[in-house]
């Protein structure tokens, strides 16, 4: 599957510029797909808004420092590890997860996610695919940086990609 990095113009804040990815053949980027899917049910809407507020405030005020992201294998996720999830009474409900890749304190790639329904992500049918793709993309980007196909411009908060580079997972 070919993966393209995509800019999100409204999420280019003073401290952080957010990006996402588009899988070839899909109508929307991964982050937009997450936003659309999680806006359907009232149960998800408030949690989605809280995740978005974290993204916005981290972008405007704080910067993408590691304490605001929970590490998940080679990738990360939001909400932050200190976020207090309001339990719904369902013992298998662990709240929404948005998988992402914190490249630097000023560049973050927002991916996709869902409601987590098992303690271990490996046992969660909703989240495992998103988690697995996030860590695969993260490893590919790390490899591409090492091989010189991707450069990070922290001052401009920009990801620079070689015209000949194509990312596949």
């Amino acid at each position, binding site marked *: 599957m070919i993966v393209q990095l995509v800019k999100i*113009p409204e999420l280019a804040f003073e401290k952080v510029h957010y990006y996402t990815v588009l899988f070839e053949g899909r109508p929307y980027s991964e982050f937009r797909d997450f936003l659309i899917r999680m806006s359907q049910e009232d149960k998800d809407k408030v949690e989605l808004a*809280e995740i*978005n*507020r974290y993204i916005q405030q981290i972008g405007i005020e704080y910067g993408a420092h590691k*304490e605001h992201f929970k590490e998940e294998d080679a990738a990360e996720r939001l909400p932050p590890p200190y*976020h*207090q999830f309001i339990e719904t009474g369902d013992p298998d409900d662990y709240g929404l997860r948005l998988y992402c890749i914190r490249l630097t304190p000023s560049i973050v790639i927002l991916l996709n996610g869902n409601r987590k329904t098992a303690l271990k992500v490996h046992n969660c049918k909703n989240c495992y695919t998103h988690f697995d793709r996030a860590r695969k993309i993260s490893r590919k980007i790390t490899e591409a940086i090492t091989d*010189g196909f991707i450069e990070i411009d922290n001052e401009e908060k920009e990801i620079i990609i070689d015209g000949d580079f194509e990312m596949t997972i």
Partner: protein
Amino acid sequence: MVKKKKILKAESTPEFKITIDSMPEESKIFVDKSLEIAHYIFQLMEQKGLKQRDLAAKMGKTEAELSKILAGMHNLTLRSVAKLEAALGATIICTPKKINVAFPSDVKTQVLEGVKAKIEHATHSPLTYEAKVVRMFSKGKSPINSEAI
């Protein structure tokens, strides 16, 4: 070294702003305070060169217990806040009275001016109760039990 720069596509996400604009005020405050407190605690730990295990030892807790507090698995009780403040040697939660006593006047003025500007921006009126409280602080008076408000 990248030889030929690829132009990245851009995609608008209008749903992002809609969700934030329509979220309950309580949820916004909850997220903002979570970020503010967590950021401040981690900043203090960094300034003081404390790792999580050092802070846990100072609080008489195991690293796992502290980790649960910082990970939001336990609600931060006032007792936990007190232990954190004692271990870090700094105030984490501050009331207006505390601002009046604890900070030097230049810092206090800056903080209060910031609060005042926010209140005025939010209400478009400098004469709200909160604005009067801020004005009294900035004049060095405590509004506690004051009948002047």
